């Protein structure tokens, strides 16, 4: 089978030659005007129809959106009363507080109690310490606004996901309808969600919450479906034999048995909600995300870092508590006795809430952390950045220029010089080789879609930024994964770092990068690499670790050195896993790329961002779907390659 490598090499050479020397007639380089379909216009018109005239009987679509908004607004207001505003009389600045919100003391004690309940005192103290951190560094108010959003978004996302997941489990057709929708939702970049929500619900916390819920729900649907399917069939049979009604079976058997698995989904909803609630500051979420956004726009370095660290603290608290609760689910239950005896922590927290609330009326420091006690690190960060920029400006600049000139720009130039039929053709050929006719057809369809959007140039720029970032992420991530798999200590250290990186909302990555390299493609690339590195490391390490011990021993017995075992046994066996890691890296890179529009890229992400600022649904959705098209194509191609590699390994050749 020397044929195919030769064909690929010839294609590559031809592409290079075309890019370097050929003068292409118009319509060959980028898709001709005649091919463009005014999809953005259609979508915008459809949206206008929806908002202006659509109605089911007497209920107009506007009424529907108002209704949904009201359903979300009421609990959100309640959460804000509890955490942020208290019960007030009057409006705006003149408002007088009748009942204060929960004091910092109460919230911190509640965090400690929850940690203790979920796992142990150490976790409780960690959670408490991070809450204190928020108070000390004057991030309390913003953090509570964010927390209020999450407190509402998570139950809604979990309940919605659970409901849809259960329906998909019960009825095959629901699953068949949902499955492609979920696929699409998980590849459409976060920003693209914001545009239609913004148009339908306006600017404000309710829209932000809605976008958050929609974004965080798909994994819960999937997890629910998988968890319910994983309930042993004998247990389902037992429920039927016991004479359960459908509802009894679900409530008393399926859900409790699936609970530990379901909690994994809940944890995901929490982390995705946090991520999205930060991003949704662009349509009015407020809180820590709004602070970061404002700092980014003002290039206020210190402020940005402070808010970013606060988000990190909140993310760690939520992640650790969520994970501990997930691990605990299905475990031993509360002790016997009366309600207070069974719930000592709840009693304690309620007591502290009351006591600190009353005491706070006399001693304000108990209610609100005093301003005098806060510490600001803004000057420190500003000085540090200044110092770095003065001291290392030349080195940093040299690095930036070198990478731009020697790596990024050539790749960009190459991709932009390729005729579009060649690009679509190569993708199709790859699809055919890896996945047969179906995948080839998908490649043609998605390629033509991209050509018809009129966004070919932006798509190629997206491809270039994504390609370079992913290549660098893999170049860094795979060796790190190898290192992590090679020794326990390295594995622990790298594992902790990677886990923490993973909990950070994508926005946070922009802050240090912008400070060091300002705006532009290079900054975007660094942020994307940082964000997308995690799966490259994780999957590589996992793939290497799960090579069967017997194979390694066989290598050792036949006298192979460590290096030989790695190269000849472990790495080849881990290839399918590493390919899956590559797949995840690409998907994360694409989702981050859209967010880097904030630092001034010129790709599809920028299109979405502009559409967002102009509330132009058609433009935003078309660009968002284009990103989704690239993501889906990459996902299917690499998925097929991984399957192929795996089949070859298991086939023994």
């Amino acid at each position, binding site marked *: 089978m020397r044929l195919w490598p030769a064909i690929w090499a010839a294609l590559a050479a031809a592409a290079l030659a075309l890019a370097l020397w050929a003068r292409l007639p118009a319509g060959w380089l980028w898709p001709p005007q005649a091919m463009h379909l005014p999809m953005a216009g259609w979508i915008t018109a459809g949206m206008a129809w929806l908002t202006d005239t659509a109605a089911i009987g007497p209920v107009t679509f506007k009424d529907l959106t108002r209704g949904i908004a009201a359903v979300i607004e009421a609990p959100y207001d309640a959460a804000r009363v509890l955490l942020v505003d208290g019960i007030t009389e009057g409006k705006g600045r003149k408002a007088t507080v009748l009942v204060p919100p929960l004091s910092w003391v109460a919230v911190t004690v509640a965090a400690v109690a929850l940690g203790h309940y979920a796992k142990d005192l150490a976790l409780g103290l960690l959670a408490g310490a991070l809450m204190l951190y928020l108070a000390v560094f004057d991030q309390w108010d913003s953090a509570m606004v964010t927390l209020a959003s999450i407190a509402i978004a998570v139950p809604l996302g979990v309940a919605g996901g659970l409901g849809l997941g259960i329906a998909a489990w019960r009825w095959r057709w629901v699953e068949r309808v949902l499955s492609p929708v979920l696929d699409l939702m998980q590849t459409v970049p976060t920003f693209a969600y914001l545009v239609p929500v913004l148009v339908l619900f306006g600017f404000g916390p309710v829209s932000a919450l809605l976008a958050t819920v929609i974004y965080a729900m798909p994994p819960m649907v999937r997890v629910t479906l998988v968890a319910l399917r994983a309930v*042993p069939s*004998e*247990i389902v*049979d*037992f429920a039927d*034999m*016991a*004479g359960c*009604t459908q509802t009894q079976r679900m409530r*008393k058997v399926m859900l409790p048995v699936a609970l530990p698995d379901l909690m994994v989904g809940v944890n995901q909803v929490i982390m995705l909600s946090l991520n999205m609630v930060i991003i949704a500051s662009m349509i009015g979420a407020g809180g820590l995300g709004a602070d970061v956004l404002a700092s980014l726009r003002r290039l206020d370095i210190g402020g940005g870092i402070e808010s970013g660290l606060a988000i990190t603290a909140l993310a760690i608290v939520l992640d650790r508590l969520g994970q501990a609760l997930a691990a605990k689910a299905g475990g031993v239950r509360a002790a016997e006795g009366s309600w207070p005896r069974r719930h000592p922590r709840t009693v304690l927290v309620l007591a502290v809430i009351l006591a600190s609330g009353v005491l706070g009326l006399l001693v304000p420091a108990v209610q609100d952390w005093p301003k005098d006690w806060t510490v600001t690190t803004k000057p420190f960060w500003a000085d540090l950045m200044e110092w770095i920029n003065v001291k290392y400006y030349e080195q940093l600049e040299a690095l930036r220029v070198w990478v731009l000139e020697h790596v990024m720009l050539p790749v960009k130039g190459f991709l932009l010089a390729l005729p579009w039929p060649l690009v679509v053709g190569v993708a199709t050929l790859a699809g055919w080789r890896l996945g047969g006719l179906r995948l080839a057809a998908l490649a043609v369809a998605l390629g033509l879609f991209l050509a018809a959007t009129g966004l070919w140039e932006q798509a190629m720029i997206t491809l270039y930024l994504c390609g370079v970032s992913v290549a660098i992420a893999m170049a860094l991530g795979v060796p790190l994964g190898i290192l992590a798999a090679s020794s326990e200590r390295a594995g622990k250290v790298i594992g902790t770092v990677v886990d923490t990186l993973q909990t950070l909302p994508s926005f946070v990555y922009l802050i240090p990068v912008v400070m060091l390299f300002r705006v532009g493609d290079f900054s975007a690339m660094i942020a994307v690499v940082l964000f997308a590195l995690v799966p490259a490391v994780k999957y590589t390490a996992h793939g290497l670790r799960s090579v069967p011990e017997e194979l390694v021993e066989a290598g050792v017995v036949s006298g192979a050195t460590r290096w030989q075992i790695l190269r000849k046994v472990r790495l080849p066996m881990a290839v399918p896993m590493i390919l899956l890691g590559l797949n995840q890296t690409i998907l994360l890179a694409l989702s981050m790329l859209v967010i880097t529009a904030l630092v001034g890229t010129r790709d599809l992400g920028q299109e979405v961002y502009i559409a967002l600022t102009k509330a132009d649904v058609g433009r935003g959705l078309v660009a968002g779907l284009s990103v989704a098209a690239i993501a889906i194509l990459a996902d299917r191609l690499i998925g097929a390659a991984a399957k192929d590699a795996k089949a070859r390994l298991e086939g023994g050749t």
Partner: protein
Amino acid sequence: MTRPVKLACRHVWKIYGPHPERLLGNAPTLEAIRASGHVGAVRDVSLAVGEGEIFVIMGLSGSGKSTLVRCLSRLVEPTGGEILYDGEDLLKASPARMIEIRRHHMGMVFQHFALLPHLTVLENVAFPLEVQGLARAAREARAREVIGLVGLQGREGHFPRQLSGGQQQRVGIARSLAVEPDLWFLDEPFSALDPLIRREMQEEFLRIQKQLKKTIVFITHDFDEAIRLADHIAIMKDGALVQVASPEELVLAPADDYVRAFTAHVSRAKVITLGRIATKGVPAGVAGTLPAEARVETVAEQVVTAGRPFAVEREGAVIGHVTPQAVIDVLIGRGT
């Protein structure tokens, strides 16, 4: 000795695949089913289970036992056929009626226990009663009763994961008996247990059955287990019944090589009953009277030690006698 039929099925089919109903019209052969990309899990099975008997379904793994028993309880919807429970066709029963029947008349024990991990032993056993809406005090009282029956007193507060496999299956048995079912399905209840524990559980099972006299459909892939427990054995192969008979008939007259392969290594004394080796008439000076259903193995020592013949009676009437020589012949495999 014929009992009234409690549960019967007629021409039951279960075919898995894209279009099972299309195949069914013309009684397809195994090959035809396979060739069309279907699986014939149960093929044209008809059988009758008498009230109070232990009816064992035996077959290699994949032969369709679990599917058949799930058709009998309608956990799996058969592709075709009739299931008659006390004369009522279950396949025509409404969902509400099925719930009713399962709540009050059927119990099932599962190979991997199927205990609910989030409930204690007591709550697990009380679960079928809870589903019926019985008050807590009443259902817990009943649950404690059956927990006592299976010898698990003192473990009511344990969670399933804190119990050994044998203990877990005792919970499964107690749970299936909590509603006092008259039809008791057991799908390989002891297959997941160690051989020693399995033996102990079989004894326990026979003890409970002596007390309760349920109508039982018991599934196993272990022929020794089958002949130990069964009044009747149905042997399955590729979804179809090969032979339905008493253990004794099965061993003495296997229908084909498939059945013969199972019976070849079984010691005759384990299955042959006194009724079969009894000779007519009763000589003077018998040492005592034995039931005709007793298996030779269980009375051999008694007869041989006595050194004298025993009278044999069936349903109160003496039908003949057995001599120590006849017993010894069976033990050493002479004759038969």
